[in-house]
Every structure is written in C-alpha cells, then in structure tokens.
C-alpha cells in the first residue's frame, strides 16, 4: 500500500523550506506531482523555481521539510539514477564534442552507447555531433545539456528553463518532445518564466516569493480567474493574494 502510494507520485514535497543568506527562498512548500504528467513550474525570476528543483534533485541543502522523488529521498543513491536534471545554465564540457560529452555521461550512467545517437537525434543535433560544444550557439549548448538528461530515459525529468534562447520552431519541437515523453509515462517538470509556454503543460504550479500560489490545470486556472490568458491569470492570482483580508 505504501509502495503503491509512493509510486503514484513522481515528486512529493512536504513543508519544504530553504533558507539562503538568512532569507527563506522557499517557504513551507507542499507539492505532489503524479507520475506521467507534464508539469510547468512557473513564476517570475527569484520566485524559487530553481531552488525547488535543486531540492528535488538533491543538490540543495534544505532547512525543513522533506522531498521524495520516485519513491526515494531526493539526492539519495536510489533516487539519482531515476532523475534527469537539466540546469538553467548548460552543464556540459565546452572542450569536448557533443558526442564525447554524451558518451561520457552515458558511461557514468551505465547506459548503452546506442543511446548517445538517440539522444542526439531527440534534440536535433545530428549535424553538430562532432563539433566541440564551445563552438556551438547558446541554444545548441542548451540542447546538448538536455540530451544528457535524456540519455538514461529516467522516469522523472527536471528541466530548468530548457527553452530559453531557442527559436520558436525549436521550442515547438522540444515541447512536443516533452509531451511525448509524458505520454510515454515520464514525469516532466519544466520551469519557465514565459507564460505562453505554460498552456502546453497538463498542470501548472505558480510560485511567487518562495510559495506556491496556484497548482492546477491551465484550463482550470483560466476558468477560476476568468482571465483570457495565463499571463493575466497569474497576475490575478497574485493580486487576490495581496488583497487585505
């Protein structure tokens, strides 16, 4: 029963507080993410999106609360192989080629070499596979970083602003990829501060000043707020919270 409960949630955050420099950057966050969903983590810069994601990955020291990912404590040896994480700034070696970067991470993860080519294709970098990452454009480097997270086909993908700096066509491709991965059972958690991207998610978690201010489907959010688009819906949620009483 307990295992069943744990496995239904890809992410379970309870009372999470992260204090940095004497200030709570994430405060009392409760969040559950069902397995196999495409979830958008949205909010303005400084809202705590990256800190929350880092806590899920287990590279963030937390002050209170608990974070469980795919049934394991975040950052534990059991959890690490099950989580693919792409940081906001690309995290790949500039002096290695695209293929060498992926071969290295594939080797670390213990996945077959055939996954290297597949991951390169998934991010549409077949033509640049033998180029040094240092010679690629910013958007291409971001895609190399994303490819590293796709290598092991983890059940949970945590992607911190993966579409920043990409052209609209490529953004469309990547969102289609995220939707396909979710349809195949992967839980995809994507942070963004671009509200126009939020409509592609099955569920939205809005963060502001380290707190969750909304957690529902895009259509439900629009219906509840009566707003015509998600930008306005977010503003309305924030204004409602700021109203006295």
């Amino acid at each position: 029963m307990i295992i069943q409960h744990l496995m239904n949630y890809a992410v379970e955050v309870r009372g999470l507080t992260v204090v940095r420099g004497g200030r709570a950057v994430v405060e009392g966050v409760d969040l559950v993410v069902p397995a196999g969903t495409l979830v958008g983590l949205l909010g303005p810069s400084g809202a705590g999106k990256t800190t929350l994601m880092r806590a899920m990955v287990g590279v963030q020291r937390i002050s209170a609360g608990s974070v469980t990912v795919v049934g394991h404590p975040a950052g534990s040896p059991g959890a690490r192989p099950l989580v693919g994480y792409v940081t906001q700034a690309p995290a790949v070696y500039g002096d290695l080629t695209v293929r060498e970067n992926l071969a290295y991470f594939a080797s670390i993860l213990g996945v077959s070499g055939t996954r290297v080519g597949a991951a390169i294709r998934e991010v549409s970098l077949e033509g640049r596979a033998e180029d040094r990452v240092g010679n690629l454009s910013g958007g291409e480097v971001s895609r190399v970083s994303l490819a590293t997270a796709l290598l092991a086909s983890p059940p949970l993908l945590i992607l911190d602003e993966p579409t920043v700096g990409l052209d609209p066509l490529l953004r469309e491709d990547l969102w289609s990829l995220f939707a396909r991965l979710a349809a195949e059972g992967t839980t995809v958690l994507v942070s963004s501060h671009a509200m126009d991207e939020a409509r592609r998610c099955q569920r939205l978690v809005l963060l502001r000043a380290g707190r969750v201010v909304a957690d529902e489907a895009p259509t439900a959010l629009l219906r509840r707020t009566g707003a015509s688009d998600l930008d306005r819906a977010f503003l309305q949620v924030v204004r409602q919270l700021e109203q006295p009483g």
Partner: protein
Amino acid sequence: MMLRSYRSELYKLRKRPATWVVFGVWLVLMLVFTYLFPYLSYRSGKSGADAIKLPNLLPAALPTQGLLGYAVWGGSLIVVLGALTLGSEYGWGTLKTMLSNGPGRLTVFCAQVAAMFTSLAGLVVVAFVCSALASVVIAASTGASIAGPAAFALALSMAVAWLILCMWCLFGVVLAIVIRGTALSVGLGLVWVLAVENIIRATASSVPVIAGIEKALPGVNAGSLVAALGTPAAGSGGDGVAAVVGGGQAAIVVALYLLLFGAVGALLLRRRDVL
C-alpha cells in the same frame, strides 16, 4: 559504480585537450631543464664546483637526473592540471550534472582522483622513457657508456616521482574545490609553489622560526625526497632539490600531505552545496 565512474573519468581526461597540453608542456620542459640545458652547460666547458658533470647526464644516472624537475616546476604544472580538472567542473556546471546522475559525491571524487593518478603514472613512465632516450643520445654523442641504472633504483625513483606528482595534483584539486573555480585556484597554486615556498626557503637560513616552517612545506619535503635518492644531480637551477630534511621524514610528510589534501577535498565536496 566506482569502476564505471573511474572509466568515465579516464575517458574524459583522455579527450580533454588541456590534459594533453599540460602533459606535453611538462615533458618538453622536463627534457629542456634536466637534459638539454645541463648538456649545453657541460659542452660550454665551464669548470668549478657547480659545473655540470657528464656522468650525471648518462643513462646510469637516470634515477636521480630524471627526477630533478618534479619537486618544484614540474609540480607547479601538475597543480595546474589538478586545478583545471576539478575547477572546470564548477566553471561548466558539470559537477551538478554528475552528482545528480547516479554516482555519489565520494565516488565521483575518488574516481576523478584515481583517473588523474593513473594518468600521472603514465606521464611518469613516458617522462622516464624520454629521459632515458635523452641520456642515451648524450652518451652516444660523447662516446660515454650507455649502461643503464639498477632496476630497483629506477623503480624507486619512478615511485617517488609519482608520489610527488600525486601530491601536487591533489593540492590543485583542493584549491579548485575550496575556490569552486579554475582561474583563481591555478593562480594561487602557482604562487604557492613558485613564489611562497621559494621566499620561505630564501629566508629560512637567517630566521630560525622560518627554518622550522620550511621543513614542513610540501615542496621542500618533495625536494628533500628527491635529494635523498642520490648524489646531487646536474640541474639547471631552481629545481628545489636540497636535503633540508631526511629522506624518511620527507617521504612521510609528502604522503601525509597527499592524505590531507585528499581528505579535505572529499570532505568539502561531500558537505557543501553544489552551486
């Protein structure tokens, strides 16, 4: 998991141009400072106490002559390698990717250190082969004996060379972890090896307190360990080889520094947030 990480780190070290640049420069400088310059000095016919003697440059003297550069300038380049290898993980943000992807922090650290130590063992072998070739060329050109050294002396010399390089490599690694970057850790490492230790050496003879400090320095102990292996060899100066402490003490101190740097690096990497 450890073996997989180790293989991955070896693959990465092998593919990174910086590794080959450091090793290439290191080998060239080693040959220039320990064979070419001393040979040219010998050929100039200079006489006196500090004159280069031909036997020091012949194959039989390989265990001492081939070891000359490791304590100071050779060490400084290996500090750069250690700082570059770990520091660039912070610079490129790859440490986060690695640590969130399977292997634990200690596994990652041990695998990286083991891969660097392995590559340093390879460097020592290649360096001694190059030194041997240089000494054979010198022997052939001067009509001297090309008889090689005793196998045990050569093995001991190579082991000492590896120990010293491993210590300096971990020094660079620790600096990179403390500073979480490359540039400053490389700079501080070079300042320490090439400037701070030399200044302390230079003033130690006149200030007793500093003489005590001198005996505890990693470079001084590395130099003493090299000196303990044989008679003073023919250097080009500035190699830091001097018997300031005994060979036994020097070996223990160098090994202790190796353990200390390793422990500090592992502890910091394990306990701190990965930025």
